[in-house]
């Protein structure tokens, strides 16, 4: 019997009402009296020297207030990078300056050069046409391997080369890994590309800067997943604004998927210009701008090798990856191909020896950073592709080869050879579940039916593990993070008993306002509507690190539990006083405090009222009021896992791939709101299937983004996707956070691309086409070429 409220209930989302009635408050919906409009003039070449910028004609035009260039930002810092990687030789990565507006050179199409601020957006756009910019175009470096050639054009003249870092992990294991390969009974090797993607949340980025001269305070309204991170980076490193004079507000945000984590130039520009002009400054990205200014994702070129012994046990993994950084280092860019990728290379398996080499490369392209999954999809894709190839080479069932190498339930906690310790899991359980739900054994009959219709049917499996609940601060500090990754929560109980929870997590589609309220309601025994969740405003919420890496419930939710526990402890003291009982005898159930073994009780509201009207109150022992704050720093990552099964039909005449069935079996530990979890997985699957079959950010040799609009970048549409069967009944609760939760936001995007590609290759090989691999997106042209080569 499903619960009807609290933890485990599919409570309806409270945020939906405002979104469904047009009453959402997205950043572009905010207009401030007297606001001006900013239009960014961006480079239309990938690489060039700026000879001159003449703004005189534009500044003389009607409605134009000022045209800004880099000269206006001489005193400002560059946009900082939040993570430093140390290379194989112990040296720090190469870290170029990332100016707000281009200084002397442009380094990618979309690099901002100048900004027109005008009374209207139309005036700003018109005037932009009159800004004369003389650029000498330079050769662009686009291909990562060519960028590392001797004599290659350098993206940054002041760096020694285009190599940001050459990272080895675990460097000490390298010789042992090589030795294991020398002794292997079988080695499977695979070269692959993890295609470059654009996150494309439906809401484009927006920034509004506002400055209050009377108290010297700045406010930035921005489409951010983590307003405190923006406040810290922009205030401390870029504009030198003390944190107490800078408020950052991220109101309703229309999706992020990683792309709204980072501090962007437009945020710093609008904040800075608001003071210069003493007027609010608003910038709203067009979609065309978003394609060339939002950080992109993925873009890895990898060689992976898998060594097996004579019993088909995995004995070693060796990888070499080229990871594109783009032209500048985005906020978390260096962490993605390293600590969020190398540490996941053990996957769900007992492989004892692993060596990961990553060369991060600067190119004349948009910066690359985390996109839903961030490093973990890249790790999973390689691993699940090479295992599938090995199974085909060895003539064994791909499900059984995986199962044979699983970490078994009795092996947890399990320390992998890549520095992480999985706390819990049951990979057989999700594999069994997905094979059952997806009717793995009934595939032959379905394949025969497809064949009768002239189609090639294939089935593909992939397992995944991810590290979520990012992250233990002391650990990530050792790994180069320039931040802590705890989360905050403040629980304010009002006199009449209703509660406001202020969380450092940020909701931009995940439904925190509903889920978080369910947790607090459950702990105290109150109706959910007595609890309000407040987020996204640095002036209201304690310093928090925001939402990414499937961390909100595991870390933010845990902070909220801790703060609520403090509230309950104090409320019990008050209740004990009111009932003249011992504190240890007080029980809280369904919003009533009672004395164990008696019929004495007081209601939640009586206790909260006493806290604020302390006439009869133990003032000598406890303070009035009922408000508590907690900061939660996780002891470990969480490790959601699962097994995904995809079935495709390939049209042999055209190479068109149709996903006809997709089944996901996940283990997220405990689940607060099953409906929301199901929705998160469905959305992740759509993005992963999109990556596998349709999406790709394609640059030509000159650095022009060829797929720079929704007409060219193939976002999945409703009729591109099948019904997705989603199950999360497997449950091994996280052992180290109070809710036993693991996180579900990224799983779908991590596990699905290899399942889809494995299915396509299965279809082709069953039909007699000896095809080892097709790079994503597995387009009709690529499939047709593979079948006909």
């Amino acid at each position, binding site marked *: 019997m499903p619960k009807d409220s609290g933890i485990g209930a599919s409570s309806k989302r409270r945020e939906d009402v405002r979104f469904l009635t047009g009453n959402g408050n997205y950043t572009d919906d905010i207009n401030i009296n007297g606001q001006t409009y900013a239009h960014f003039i961006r480079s239309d070449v990938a690489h060039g020297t700026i000879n001159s910028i003449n703004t005189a004609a534009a500044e003389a035009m009607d409605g134009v207030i000022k045209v800004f260039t880099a000269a206006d930002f001489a005193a400002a810092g560059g946009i900082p990078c939040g993570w430093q990687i140390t290379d194989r030789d112990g040296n720090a990565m190469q870290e170029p300056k990332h100016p707000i507006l281009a200084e002397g050179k442009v380094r990618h199409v979309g690099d901002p050069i100048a900004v027109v601020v005008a009374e209207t957006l139309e005036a700003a756009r018109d005037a932009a046409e009159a800004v004369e910019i003389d650029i000498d175009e330079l050769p662009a470096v686009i291909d990562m391997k060519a960028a590392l050639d001797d004599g290659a054009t350098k993206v940054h003249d002041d760096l020694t080369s285009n190599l940001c870092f050459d990272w080895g992990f675990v460097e000490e294991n390298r010789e042992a890994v090589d030795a294991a390969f020398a002794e292997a009974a079988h080695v499977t090797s695979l070269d692959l590309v993890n295609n470059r993607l654009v996150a494309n949340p*439906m809401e484009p980025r927006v920034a509004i800067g506002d400055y209050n001269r009377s108290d010297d305070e700045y406010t930035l309204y921005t489409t951010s997943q983590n307003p405190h991170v923006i406040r810290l980076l922009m205030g401390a490193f870029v504009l030198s604004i003390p944190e107490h004079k800078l408020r950052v507000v991220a109101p309703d945000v229309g999706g992020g998927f990683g792309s709204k984590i980072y501090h962007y130039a437009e945020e710093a520009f609008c904040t800075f210009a608001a003071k210069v002009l003493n007027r609010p400054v608003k910038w709203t990205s067009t979609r065309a701008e978003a394609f060339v200014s939002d950080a992109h994702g993925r873009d890895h070129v990898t060689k992976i090798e898998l060594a097996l012994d004579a019993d088909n046990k995995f004995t070693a993994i060796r990888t070499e990856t080229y990871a594109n950084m783009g032209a500048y280092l985005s906020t978390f860019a260096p962490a993605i191909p390293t600590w969020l990728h190398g540490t996941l290379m053990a996957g769900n398996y007992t492989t004892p020896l692993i060596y990961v080499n990553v060369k991060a490369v600067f190119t004349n392209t948009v910066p690359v950073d985390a996109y839903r999954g961030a490093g973990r999809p890249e790790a999973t894709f390689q691993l699940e592709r090479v295992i599938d190839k090995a199974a085909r080479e060895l003539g064994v069932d791909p499900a059984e080869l995986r199962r044979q190498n699983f970490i078994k339930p009795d092996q947890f906690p399990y320390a992998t050879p890549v520095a992480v310790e999985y706390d819990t899991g049951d990979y057989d359980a999700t594999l069994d579940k997905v094979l059952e739900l997806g009717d793995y054994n009934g595939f032959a009959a379905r394949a025969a039916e497809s064949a009768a219709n002239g189609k090639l049917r294939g089935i593909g499996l992939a397992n995944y593990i991810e590290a979520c609940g990012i992250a233990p601060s002391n650990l990530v500090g050792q790994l180069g993070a320039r931040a802590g990754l705890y989360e905050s929560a403040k629980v304010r109980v009002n006199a009449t008993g209703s509660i406001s929870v202020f969380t450092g997590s940020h909701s931009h589609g995940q439904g925190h306002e509903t889920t978080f309220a369910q947790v607090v309601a459950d702990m105290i025994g109150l109706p959910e509507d007595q609890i309000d969740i407040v987020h996204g405003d640095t002036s209201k919420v304690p310093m928090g690190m925001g939402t990414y890496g499937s961390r909100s419930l595991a870390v933010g939710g845990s902070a909220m539990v801790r703060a609520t526990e403090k509230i309950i402890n104090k409320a019990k003291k008050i209740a004990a006083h009111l009932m003249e009982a011992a504190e240890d005898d007080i029980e809280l159930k369904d919003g009533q405090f009672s004395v164990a073994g008696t019929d004495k009780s007081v209601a939640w509201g009586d206790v909260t009222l006493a806290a604020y009207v302390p006439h009869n109150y133990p003032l000598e022992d406890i303070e009035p009021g009922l408000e508590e704050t907690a900061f939660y720093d996780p002891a470990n990552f969480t490790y959601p896992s699962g097994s995904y099964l995809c079935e495709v039909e390939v049209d042999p005449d055209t190479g068109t791939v149709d996903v006809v069935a997709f089944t996901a079996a996940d283990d997220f530990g405990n689940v607060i709101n099953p409906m929301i979890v*199901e929705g*998160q997985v469905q959305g992740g699957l759509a993005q992963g299937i999109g990556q596998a079959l349709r999406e790709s950010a394609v640059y030509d040799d000159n650095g022009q983004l060829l797929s720079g609009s929704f007409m060219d970048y193939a976002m*999945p*549409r409703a009729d591109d996707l099948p*019904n997705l069967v989603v199950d999360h009944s497997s449950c091994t609760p996280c052992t180290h956070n109070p809710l036993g939760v693991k996180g579900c936001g990224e799983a779908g995007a991590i596990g699905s691309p290899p399942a889809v590609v494995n299915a396509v290759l299965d279809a082709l090989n069953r039909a007699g086409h000896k095809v080892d691999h097709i790079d994503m997106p597995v387009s009709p042209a690529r499939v047709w070429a593979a079948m006909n080569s």
Partner: protein
Amino acid sequence: MATITMTVNGSEVSAEAEGRTLLSQYLREGLGMTGTHVGCDTSQCGACVVHVNGQAVKSCTMFAAEAAGAEVTTVEGMANADGSLGVIQQAFQDHHGLQCGFCTPGMVMSAAALLKDNPKPTEAEIRDYLEGNICRCTGYQNIVRAIMAASGQEVPGAIAAE
């Protein structure tokens, strides 16, 4: 600049607009009705869908001046008279047919147009009809379920909210 007058959600309204002002811009900036969203600049995403004289229109593809005198319905006009959620809106909430909410106004308006022409669409017909509306969050499945439910049809395999 000229004053453009039209009927929006049953009320006659006027605002200044240039010849190049789009209907989406007129609604959002001229009238301050920010329920209609703009998610692209190539008329692909469908977040801006409204009804003009009963037809579903991407309001970013129409000049405000072209809609002068027209009857326009936006997402703000889709609730019941008492302010409660309309049938389609309620189905979207019941079936978790939205996450970030940004594409939602267009989805609701497209769904309304579909159900007007085809009161009992099949799942395939719904998916086909939504070709002009992009959602990045949901994978569309719960949007399809919501529209099935709003049409009074059974929703196979749905976990409806409590």
